[in-house]
């Protein structure tokens, strides 16, 4: 009896150690530490939100009835965070410098750029972080005509095909045609 208890407690201790050693959200490869970038250090976001894994699951459950594809996409995610900065007081060339610095920093951190569009006063870039041939995170930098900068970071397994299929399913406009 005591031996059995000994074995059970050992298993419990080991499992708790394994649970404790799981990486924190900030240590996940898909987490973008953009707050550490010099260009964002002194900036205050005009709007921001973070949706964690538990809330994502709840939303996925709610979305299950309407769209199984969307629910499937959401269930694989660990975190969605979005930050919007109002940079209307900054001239366009400063914003371009910001974009370039952001781009360089992400490429240095082994993020891959999958989409980039640049027009007169707007631009958007999408970066992905791959681990073992799977996308572990996605980052989006968008600059609008009113110099609003939006950064979106999605942590978790992002399937680009599934996301693209959502565009067809919900009829999102094709960005090339709309601009």
């Amino acid at each position, binding site marked *: 009896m*005591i*031996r059995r*208890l*000994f074995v*059970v*407690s050992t298993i*419990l*201790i080991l499992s*708790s150690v394994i649970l404790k050693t799981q990486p924190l959200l900030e240590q996940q490869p898909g987490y973008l530490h953009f707050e550490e970038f010099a260009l964002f250090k002194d900036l205050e976001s005009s709007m921001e*939100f973070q*949706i*964690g894994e*538990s*809330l*994502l699951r*709840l*939303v996925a459950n*709610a*979305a299950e009835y309407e769209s199984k594809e969307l629910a499937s996409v*959401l269930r694989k995610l660990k975190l*969605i965070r*979005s930050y919007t900065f109002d940079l209307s007081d900054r001239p366009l060339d400063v914003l371009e410098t910001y974009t370039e610095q952001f781009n360089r920093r992400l490429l240095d951190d082994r993020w891959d750029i*999958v*989409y980039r*569009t640049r027009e007169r006063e707007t631009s*958007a870039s*999408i970066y992905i972080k791959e681990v073992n041939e799977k996308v572990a995170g*996605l980052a*989006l930098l*968008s600059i609008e005509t009113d110099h609003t900068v*939006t950064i*979106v970071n*999605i942590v978790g397994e992002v399937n*680009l*095909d599934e*996301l*693209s299929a*959502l*565009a*067809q399913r*919900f009829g*999102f*406009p*094709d*960005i*090339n045609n*709309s601009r």
Partner: protein
Amino acid sequence: MVPNCSHTKNFLLNAAYSKNLLFRMVAFLYSLKCAGCRAMYIQARHTSNLLKRELFRECPPSVLRTVYSRTRPRRNGVISRIVETIFLHPRIAFGSSAIVAAVIAVMGYYMITTTMDGPVYSSSEIELAQRQIEETFNLLVPLIHSAELNLKEDIIMRQVIPPLRDGIATTTELISKGIRQ
């Protein structure tokens, strides 16, 4: 009794006091050959069981510990020695079982609280999250879709069609040369 009686007797007695179940079964089957052997074997088994019970009941724990420590199978592993030392002494065994019980209680509490005390969201918070996710996807999904379309278009138009066209042209030229010759 069966012939060669002294050998049979020794064999049956050894088996009756043995811990080996297979050995005892063989001896029992062998004893079925005659009523005398069977009676002797059953008596020996009875005595063996009685001795075991009485020995463990009557013997003081210190003697049992000594017997166990002298007769136990030797293991070289450090962990097995620690475990044996723990279980040889009642006080240490009691202390370690108390520690184990405490660890199980703490771990159970930890596991239950971590699973039960998750964040509780109101319906308005879930609705807000839905809207925020929708906004994010409204921004992101068209870009990804268009990136995929661009990629496909780029691969097909620039990397697949031109070499295919060149290949067809070369083949046609070769065929036409062959026909002329």
